[in-house]
């Protein structure tokens, strides 16, 4: 049996940050944030909370929910771009926090909004190549730590959170063929300067909103067609479209551009914001796995920082 998703669990911080903060600070029209952007509130870490805390909680939750012992975990892959520290990797910390076996492979992948789909491909391929039966794919981000509260382009958008997917050979959903893409020439469109080895001044997160919007509308429709073709499917074969939950505006624009039925496209960021690499698994958790409402085929596409994108189709087993 091939590897797929058996269960999903999420961990969101307790602190709720409502739109009132941004309405007062930036003078936003309240209906703009809820109706155009699609966000009423988002969760931000507080105190000493960090990415590994959210990642650990999500991974622990998925093991508990699925009744799987930590001793069974053979792979722990964490997708994050906001680690607690540059060194060590977050998966190492989570491995220790959960008491996973010393034989577990634990490593991080640095990707953002495309990270869940890339991570799903990496994790399933790794487990298949090495004959593993049980693994956890975690996505975790704490963008709030790196935002400029005065930047109206970024501060209202992002929410913190983590998701953990249990990957086994008895899945609910199995991923099909993947497509991938990169546009590294535009890597400065979403950037956190001064956060690594390059000698430059530290700066909060910068995002070229218009550039990313254009990138998505230019690249993703073609990638959707390529992915469908690679999987031998047509658009009408897809029951649910789960894209990276960037904003309602972007999702509606992409839906219209691709000619998709709006009722089949998930828009679910009202109370969590853009959770970066967790946005797709969080939507799956809330719309599919949580209510046990299992459509036959789900199209996933993540796109963003890098710039990068990846797509696949989940098929119900």
């Amino acid at each position: 049996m091939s590897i797929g998703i058996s269960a999903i669990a999420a961990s969101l911080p307790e602190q709720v940050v409502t739109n009132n903060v941004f309405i007062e600070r930036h003078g936003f029209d309240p209906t703009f944030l809820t109706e155009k952007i699609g966000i009423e509130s988002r969760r931000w870490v507080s105190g000493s909370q960090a990415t590994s805390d959210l990642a650990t909680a999500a991974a622990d939750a998925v093991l508990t929910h699925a009744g799987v012992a930590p001793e069974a975990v053979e792979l722990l892959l964490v997708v994050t771009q906001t680690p607690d520290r540059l060194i060590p990797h977050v998966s190492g910390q989570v491995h220790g926090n959960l008491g996973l076996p010393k034989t577990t492979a634990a490593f991080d992948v640095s990707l953002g909004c495309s990270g869940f789909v890339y991570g799903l491909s990496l994790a399933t391929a790794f487990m298949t190549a090495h004959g593993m039966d049980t693994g956890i794919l975690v996505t975790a981000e704490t963008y709030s730590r790196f935002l400029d509260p005065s930047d109206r382009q970024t501060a209202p958008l992002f929410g913190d959170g983590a998701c953990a997917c249990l990957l086994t050979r008895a899945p609910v959903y199995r991923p099909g063929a993947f497509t991938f893409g990169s546009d590294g020439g535009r890597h400065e469109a979403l950037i956190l300067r001064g956060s690594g080895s390059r000698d430059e001044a530290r700066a909060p997160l910068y995002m070229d909103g218009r550039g990313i919007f254009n990138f998505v509308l230019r690249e993703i429709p073609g990638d959707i067609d390529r992915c469908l073709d690679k999987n031998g499917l047509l658009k009408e074969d897809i029951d649910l479209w789960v894209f990276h939950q960037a904003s309602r505006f972007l999702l509606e624009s992409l839906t219209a551009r691709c000619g998709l039925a709006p009722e089949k496209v998930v828009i679910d960021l009202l109370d969590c914001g853009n959770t970066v690499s967790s946005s797709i698994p969080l939507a799956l958790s809330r719309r599919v796995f949580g209510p046990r409402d299992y459509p036959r085929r789900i199209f996933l596409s993540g796109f963003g920082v890098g710039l990068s994108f990846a797509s696949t189709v989940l098929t119900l087993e």
Partner: protein
Amino acid sequence: MTREDIVSKLAAILPVVKPKLPAFPEKDWDAIVPGRDLLFDSLDSIALLFQVEEIFAIKVPDDDADTVLASLGTLTDYILARSGDR
């Protein structure tokens, strides 16, 4: 491409323009673009610029966006200048 050709194409993406065609005198062109001063300097402006770039095969640098979208007249002039017609 004439100014009239440009306005006709813009009518497809500027709903406020379409009802006024064909009887839309040039003297009334200084009006009408979507509201501004929202996130990303107007998400509607971002979407509009994207469509303008596609339809007319031009690039609108960010620095030009404010002046380009000041009015239908400035938008038309900008497209006309970059489409090669004078």
